C-alpha cells in the first residue's frame, strides 16, 4: 500500500476509532484495581494513542510527501552503510584548469544512460534513468516549456534548470510544493526569464538513503556515485534527449534544504557544466545521515566542504542564496560560506533574521531567484518583448 494514498489514511482512521470504541466498551470489565486490569487499561489507552499518532503522521506525510512507499520509509530509518575502515590517501588532484571568464573546456561525454518512462501527466513526464557513467538508477521528472512542440520552435534550444528536493522527498514533491511549472511559465510570459526546461532529479537512492549527493568510495560498481549521476549522467541524458543549449551559461541548479546542498555540490564541483545555482535554506558542509561512506578523517570527504572551497578554490559560478539566521539547519554553514566566497565565485545573498526551516517561507522567494537567474546567466536571459 502506498504511503501517500488516501487508503492508508482511511484505514488508520477506522482502526483508531475502532480502538477508541473497544476501549470504552471494555473499560467496565477492567474496572477492578488489580495489576492486570490496570495494565489492560493503560494498554488500551496506549493503543488508541499509537493509532491516532500514526494517523497524524500519515496525514503529515500525505501533505509534505516525504516518503512514497514502505521501502522509502524503511530505507530512511535504517543505517545504509558504515564508514570505511581505512583512511584513503589522495592520489593526485584535478589539474588546475586555466579558467578565463566564463569559458571552461567541457569533459568528454559519458557513456549513454538507459531510460524507462515511469509516469506521465498533463505537464510532466517522469523517467527512471540509469546513468551511463555512475550506473545509478533513480527518477527524473521533466517539465517542457509551453511552445516546445510548436513547429516554429523546432530549431529552438532551451536552457535547463536542474532541481533537487529536500530529504526525504519523492521526485514529484518539490515541483508540486513550489508550483514550479507555473512559476517558470509566468516568468517567461513576463519576459523575466527565457522559456526553460525544468528537470527534478531524485538523489535519495536507493530508497530512503541520505546520499548527500556525494560519490562514495566504491566506484560505479558500488552503485553509490550520486554526485556523478546528478552532475554528469543526467545533464548528458537531458542534452541528448531534449533540445537544450549546451553552454554552461544555460545550465543552472536549484533546490530547497538538502536539495539546495545538492544544487551547490553540482554547480561548485562541476563548473564546466553549470554556471549558476540557487540555494534556498541550504547548507554548505556535508551532513552525513543514515549513510556514512567515509571515516570522519578521510581526506576524500574534504571535497564536500564547500565553505573551504569558496575561500580557497572558488569556481567561476554565480550563486543566489537565501537563509534565515534562525534556521539552525542552514545558517551555521551558509553565513560562513557567504563570508568566505570570493571572486570568481559571485554570491547574491539574502539573509533574513527570523523564520524557520519550511517551504511556506521559501516559496515566495523562488520567483525572485529565477528573475536573478535571468539577469546573471546569459542562457536564461529573456528575449526582449
Amino acid at each position: 500500500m502506498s504511503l501517500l494514498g488516501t487508503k492508508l489514511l482511511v484505514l488508520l482512521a477506522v482502526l483508531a476509532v475502532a480502538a477508541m470504541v473497544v476501549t470504552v466498551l471494555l473499560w467496565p470489565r477492567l474496572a477492578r484495581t488489580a495489576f492486570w486490569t490496570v495494565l489492560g487499561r493503560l494498554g488500551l489507552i496506549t493503543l488508541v494513542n499509537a493509532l491516532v499518532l500514526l494517523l497524524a503522521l500519515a496525514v503529515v506525510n500525505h501533505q509534505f510527501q516525504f516518503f512514497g512507499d514502505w521501502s522509502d520509509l524503511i530505507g530512511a530509518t535504517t543505517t545504509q552503510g558504515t564508514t570505511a575502515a581505512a583512511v584513503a590517501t589522495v592520489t593526485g588532484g584535478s589539474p588546475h584548469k586555466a579558467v578565463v571568464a566564463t569559458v571552461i573546456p567541457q569533459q568528454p561525454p559519458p557513456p549513454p544512460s538507459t531510460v524507462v518512462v515511469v509516469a506521465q501527466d498533463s505537464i510532466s513526464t517522469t523517467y527512471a534513468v540509469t546513468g551511463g557513467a555512475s550506473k545509478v538508477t533513480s527518477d527524473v521528472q521533466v517539465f517542457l516549456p509551453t511552445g516546445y512542440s510548436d513547429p516554429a520552435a523546432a530549431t529552438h534550444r532551451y536552457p535547463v534548470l536542474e532541481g533537487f528536493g529536500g530529504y526525504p522527498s519523492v521526485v514529484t514533491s518539490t515541483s508540486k510544493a513550489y508550483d514550479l511549472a507555473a512559476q517558470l511559465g509566468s516568468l517567461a510570459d513576463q519576459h523575466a526569464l527565457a522559456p526553460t526546461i525544468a528537470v527534478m532529479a531524485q538523489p535519495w537512492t536507493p530508497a530512503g538513503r541520505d546520499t548527500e549527493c556525494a560519490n562514495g568510495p566504491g566506484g560505479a560498481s558500488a552503485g553509490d556515485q550520486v554526485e556523478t549521476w546528478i552532475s554528469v549522467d543526467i545533464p548528458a541524458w537531458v542534452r541528448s534527449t531534449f533540445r537544450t543549449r549546451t553552454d554552461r551559461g544555460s545550465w543552472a541548479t536549484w533546490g530547497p534544504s538538502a536539495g539546495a546542498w545538492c544544487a551547490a555540490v553540482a554547480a561548485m564541483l562541476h563548473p564546466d557544466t553549470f554556471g549558476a545555482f540557487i540555494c534556498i535554506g541550504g547548507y554548505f558542509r556535508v551532513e552525513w545521515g543514515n549513510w556514512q561512506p567515509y571515516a570522519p578523517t578521510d581526506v576524500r570527504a574534504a571535497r564536500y566542504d564547500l565553505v573551504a572551497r569558496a575561500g580557497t578554490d572558488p569556481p567561476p559560478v554565480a550563486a543566489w542564496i537565501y537563509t534565515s539566521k534562525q534556521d539552525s539547519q542552514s545558517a551555521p554553514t551558509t553565513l560562513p560560506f557567504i563570508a568566505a566566497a570570493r571572486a570568481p565565485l559571485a554570491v547574491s545573498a539574502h539573509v533574513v533574521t527570523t523564520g524557520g526551516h519550511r517551504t511556506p517561507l521559501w516559496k515566495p522567494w523562488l520567483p525572485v531567484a529565477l528573475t536573478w537567474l535571468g539577469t546573471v546567466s546569459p542562457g536564461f536571459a529573456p528575449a526582449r518583448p
Partner: protein
Amino acid sequence: MDLGLTSGLFATVVVALAILAPVLVVIAWRRVRGRSAALRSAQRWALVLLSQAVAVVAVLVLINNEFGLYSSWDDLLGRTSTASATDVLVPPTTAARGTHPSAPGAATALPWNSGVPKGFSTYDSASTFVAEVRVPGTSAPLKVYVSVPPEYGRPEFARVDFPVVELFHGYPGSPTTWFHAMDVRAKLADAVAAGATPFVLVVPQISVAGAPDLECTDLPGQPQVATFLTTEVRSVITTHFRVRADRAGWAAMGYSEGGYCAAQLVLRHPELFAAGVDLSGYDAPESSAFDTLPLLKQAGSLATLLRSAPAVAIFASASRQDQQSSGSLTSLRRGARPPTSVTTQLFAQGGHNTADWSAGLPASFIWLSHQIPRVGP
C-alpha cells in the same frame, strides 16, 4: 526559565505530559462526576481525546526540534514581520518590476534625516552632497560628490553600513555628468527595484585644472591622483558616511577614461576594491604625460596588471563600432587568470556616448550586486 518553542525544557515538559496522560486518564476514569451515564461517558471521551492531543503535540514538538521547521513561538504564531530590520527584500508577489517610490524628486520620497555631514554641502538634492578634498602633491583641492540612496535614511537601516561604488567620469569631463547625462541616481533606483544593492555613490573629480591628463595615476612631480582617488577619498567617505570600510564593500565604475581608471585601480588594489565596471574604457594610458615615462605606461596597461592575478571581478562592456574599447575587451579576456574574474559584453550597436552608457547602468548595478551582495547587519 526558557520555555521557547525549540528549548529543551519545553520538549521535556511536553514529553513528560504525554507519558503521564494515559496514567492520569486511568486514575480519573472512576472519579468523573455526573448524574447521567451519558454525562460521565462524555467526560471520559474528553479525557481520552485530551491524552491523544498531548501525545500528538509531543511528537510534533520532537519533529520540529529535529528539522527546525518553526524557530520560535513568534514564527509558529505568524507574529514575525517579513520586513524586519535586517531583511534584504520583502518578496514581491510577482516578478514584475514596478515603479520605485524612492526616485529623487518623487513626492513620496522619504525625508533625509541624518543631516548634512560636516564639511559637505548639498548639491542639487537633499541626498546628494559635495565637498572639496585635499590632493597630495598640489595645493588645489578636488571636488567629491556623494549620493546616498533612500534606504540610507530609513530607521531600519540605521545600523547598516552601506557598500560604495566610486564613479569616474571621462576626459575631459566633470563628475556632475554622472548625475545629469548619465542620470545615475534614477538608474540605481531602477536597479534597486529589481533587487540590486542600494549603493552609496561617490563621484570624485579625476582631472586637475592646469595639469595634463594624468589618467588616474601617480606621476612624478604631478598631483597624486591615484592616491587621492584611493586613500584621500576613502578616508573622507568612511569618516563622514555610514559606509563599509572593507574591500568587500567597495567597487569602482567608470566610462571612457573613467572606465580605464576603474579597471586599473581595481586591478592594482584588490585590498581596496572587490569589483570594477569598465564602460568603453581602453587598455593602456595614452596621455602625453606618459611620453617620457615608458615603464610607467607599460605598468599601467591592463594586460600587465592582470598578470598578478588579483582576486577581483571586472565587468567590461564596449560597442563593436568602438574599436579601441572592443579591442580592450579581448585583451582583458585573454589576460585574465584565476582568481581574477573577467566578464565582458560586446554590443553590436551603440557608441561612445552617455546615452548608451546610461542605458546600461541598471545591468551594471545588478552585476555589481552579485559581487557586493545586499546583506543586513
